[in-house]
């Protein structure tokens, strides 16, 4: 058996383990063992991949394997990884690992909580290892549905509304996505669901027999994934969902699940329909440009800590889609780096917010002040997360945004330059809301008597926060090996997209 499938097998075993677990300690034991194994496997995969890539520079996917699932429809369970998916798998493993510790104290129904949590992570891992459209779509939906129960049962605030809104909007997106997948399957004439085979079967010629239908399927697919990637105007589920979700679910959702959207847009929509991507990319570029700026401005006026971070996620995830639509190598690598960086720092942010909320029982900025004296550890970590968010050199945010904007500026044409300048303003706006926030809640004098009695982080909280900070700093200080890894994955996709440049349409 191919060792990539172990990424799905481990969560499956964890589900079984949770099923038979009798008490809280056993549940925690299963979760720690499983998530550690996943992390170890992901780290091993990075090194194994680098080695294998040295040996084989030609094939796009490495460690491929395939099992004939539904021969009648030529649907296979195929796995394989390239540089992008390796990076994403590593990110997911880190978030699942730290998320487990962040929900250490969660009550009630701990066992059920971890059951759905593990199912969610199974979907995420399965999505990133699949190279077959059907299997990919299946794992995508597996990852979506546990969110309903996770938010609905363990959430806070108007959780029923948020959970339903999130689920229905994402499922609505996946309805269009499914239509797009059928369109690709029957439109290309390749009669296969394997992504690499579809991309290569026409040897660089236009694979779709009907170009206007290709445009339609591109719009469906990109929008379908774009909903999960929080693309304007389909981002509205994100603030409500994140605000109501419990800590670890926010972490996993903002950290990993939203990346499924960006990854899918790049790997499926743009890679398989390069002509349509060149022709219609500008429409989506405008939309994502709007989300970048709009998300940042919205974050400025929010008073709920989680809403601020959720809108900040809209802005940063918008930047991911923005960068891949620039359709050049540097920007695309920056996009994947941004996924990694945003995943790590937003998970850190949500973890910290959850910890603060667990103590103060409020997330309202107006009611919090002077936390630095009361819980110095959490406060310092919060500052670090904020600085990473606004792109301070040395932390991960800087590396990603720098790469994106350098790549974007190198695109020729007033249209691209204009949108790049607009998107760049988000850096300033981010600095505004982050610094204001930090100043308001961490510094000054604590006015609430009740808050003065609170304690600092416990060992499990410290552990998960420190892990995330190390990753953020590690990515910020040594970005080259990650960007090299990612570059090997983005190169072939960008080549395919550029080969269809004759379809390129730019408004001005």
């Amino acid at each position, binding site marked *: 058996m191919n060792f990539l499938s172990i990424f799905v097998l481990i969560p499956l075993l964890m589900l079984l383990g949770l099923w038979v677990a009798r008490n809280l300690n056993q549940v925690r034991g299963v979760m720690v063992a499983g998530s550690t194994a996943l992390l170890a496997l992901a780290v091993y995969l990075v090194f194994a991949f680098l080695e294998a890539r040295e040996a084989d520079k030609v094939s796009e996917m490495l460690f491929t394997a395939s099992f004939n699932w539904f021969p009648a429809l030529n649907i296979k369970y195929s796995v394989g990884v390239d540089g992008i998916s390796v990076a994403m798998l590593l990110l997911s493993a880190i978030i699942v690992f730290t998320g487990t510790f962040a929900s250490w104290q969660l009550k009630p129904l701990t066992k059920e909580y971890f059951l759905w949590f593990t199912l969610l992570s199974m979907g995420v891992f399965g999505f990133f290892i699949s190279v077959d459209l059907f299997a990919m779509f299946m794992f995508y939906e597996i990852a979506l549905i546990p969110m309903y*129960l996770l938010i609905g049962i363990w959430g806070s605030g108007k959780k029923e509304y948020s959970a339903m809104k999130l*689920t229905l909007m994402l*499922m609505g997106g996946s309805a269009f996505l499914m239509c797009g997948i059928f369109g690709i399957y029957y439109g290309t004439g390749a009669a296969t669901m394997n992504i690499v085979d579809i991309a290569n079967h026409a040897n660089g010629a236009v694979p779709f027999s009907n170009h206007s239908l290709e445009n339609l399927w591109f719009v469906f697919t990109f929008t379908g994934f774009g909903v999960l990637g929080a693309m304007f105007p389909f981002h509205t589920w994100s603030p409500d969902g994140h605000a109501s979700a419990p800590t670890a679910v926010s972490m996993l959702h903002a950290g990993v699940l939203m990346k499924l959207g960006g990854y899918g847009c790049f790997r499926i929509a743009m890679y398989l329909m390069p002509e349509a991507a060149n022709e219609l990319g500008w429409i989506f570029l405008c939309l994502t440009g709007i989300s970048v700026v709009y998300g940042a401005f919205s974050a400025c006026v929010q008073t709920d800590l989680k809403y601020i971070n959720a809108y900040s996620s809209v802005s940063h995830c918008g930047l991911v889609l923005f960068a891949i639509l620039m359709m050049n190598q540097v920007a695309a690598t920056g996009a994947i780096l941004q996924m990694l960086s945003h995943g790590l720092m937003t998970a850190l942010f949500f973890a910290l917010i959850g910890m603060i909320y667990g103590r103060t029982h409020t997330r309202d900025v107006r009611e919090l002040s002077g936390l630095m004296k009361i819980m110095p550890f959490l406060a310092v970590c919060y500052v670090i997360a904020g600085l990473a968010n606004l792109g301070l050199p040395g932390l991960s945010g800087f590396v990603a945004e720098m790469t994106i904007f350098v790549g974007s500026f190198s695109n020729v044409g007033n249209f691209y330059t204009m949108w790049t300048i607009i998107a760049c303003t988000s850096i300033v706006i981010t600095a505004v809301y982050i610094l204001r926030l930090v100043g308001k809640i961490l510094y000054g004098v604590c006015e609430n008597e009740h808050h003065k009695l609170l304690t600092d982080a416990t060992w499990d909280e410290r552990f998960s926060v420190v892990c995330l900070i190390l990753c953020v700093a590690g990515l910020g200080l040594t970005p080259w090996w990650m960007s090299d890894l990612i570059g090997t994955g983005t190169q072939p996709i960008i080549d395919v997209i550029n080969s269809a440049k004759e379809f390129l349409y730019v408004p001005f």
Partner: protein
Amino acid sequence: MDYSQFLNMQAELSLLAVIVILFVADLFMCGDGKKGVYNTCLPVVLLTIHTVLNICPCCQGAGEAFGGMYVHTPMMSIVKSVLAVGTIVTFLMAHKWLSREENLIKQGEFYLITLFTLLGMYFMISSGHFLMFFIGLETASIPMAATVAFDKNRYESAEAGAKFILLALFSAGLLLYGISLIYGATGTLYFDEIGKTLTLSNPLALLGLVLFISGMGFKISLVPFHLWTADTYEGAPTVVTGFLSVISKGSAAFVLFTVLIKVFPELVGAWNQAFMWIIIFSITVANVFAVRQNNLKRFMAFSAISQAGYLVLGVMDGTAQGMTSLVFYLLVYMVANLGAFAVITTIEENSGKINISDYNGLYSTNPKLSFLMTLCLFSLAGIPPFAGFFSKFFIFMAAFKAGWHWLVLIALINTVISLYYYLLIVKAMYIKGPGFTEQKLVSISADNDRVMPEDGPIPTFRVDCYTRTALFICVAGVVLLGICGVAYNCIDSFSYGLDKVMEVCTGCCK
């Protein structure tokens, strides 16, 4: 006379044997005996033997009997086995209900009537002649009315029975009229011969087709022929509702498909047009109505109408892939829906509650039942990794391949609406209610459901072993049928050759 042709009818004959054995056993069981082996055990064992016998030789080729009145293909025996398994599950579900004081004495009637319905469906599926088809159809639907009115002391049950029989007869009348028009046009009632001679240029053909579709539309409860569904489903005993929503609907849908491709291949454009609108209205109207329901049986009625709409998507263009997906959809829908009905029945029998709002906080008192219900509902909504996702994916794929892109998109958007109302039940079970901190684990004694506080969740109870078995079968199906591709691949291997039939016919047309 060649007696070997009876071998082709092995499924019907063995079912008849089961019926006779049960009938004789019923005569010799006194009142006490009916609480013992005769209650559920004997019928289930006999029916299981029948099903196993039925599945095994399905690898044999096709055959016919009575000069083509009766035809047999491997695909048909698969569908028959699916229906038989569904009936077994229904019997298992019915145990507690039949063990009631007033039902003990007449449980034999329930088994016999249900099995006769099944026999009628067998004949209907295997018919090669309109007369056989009609006899089968009536054998399937008239006894059904008796089971719908089985709780004769309940006013709603009797009313439901009356509604059902009236509309069944009305639809049978339409169907007969359609058949007579077709006979007038072609001068024969054999499916094969009609298919060869009936063309679109014949004015009676189109009218016959329309009447045939409306007659079958009543059986499958497609919009706009669905008006009886909600009332009948609500009034009928819950077990019967389960049977009605799956077995009777499924058999009719399969027969619709086979008759359409055998009898009306030249009119493929016409029935595509008709079904496009029927499907759009069925899923949309039913979904919109289902959102507003509080009674769970009415809710399931509208859910069943919309599921029938998806099921009929396989009919579009009459492709082999459509046939495979339709049968697979039927199988998956059967396990998921019967699973949900098993939960509903056992909750109704133990607490008397049937409204969605009664399910508030069910997870805190009956976690396992709620969990199984959730799996079944997710499967109905088409959420992976449960089988419903696969069946929906394949049936949409088949319709998409036939070129009905917009229809598929509308159906897909409707799955989102259906997800909304299925999640309403999940929400009631998990999220609403008194919360998990103050669990009231009150065990229920024999007859005190009135003592319970009105607003508390349904108290904890033990599920009897027959219902457990039914649930086990259903949930195993829900979890495994999709993931293990065997079921689909196996069904697919029997639908070969269909495309050729359609090609030849449309070729003639051109």
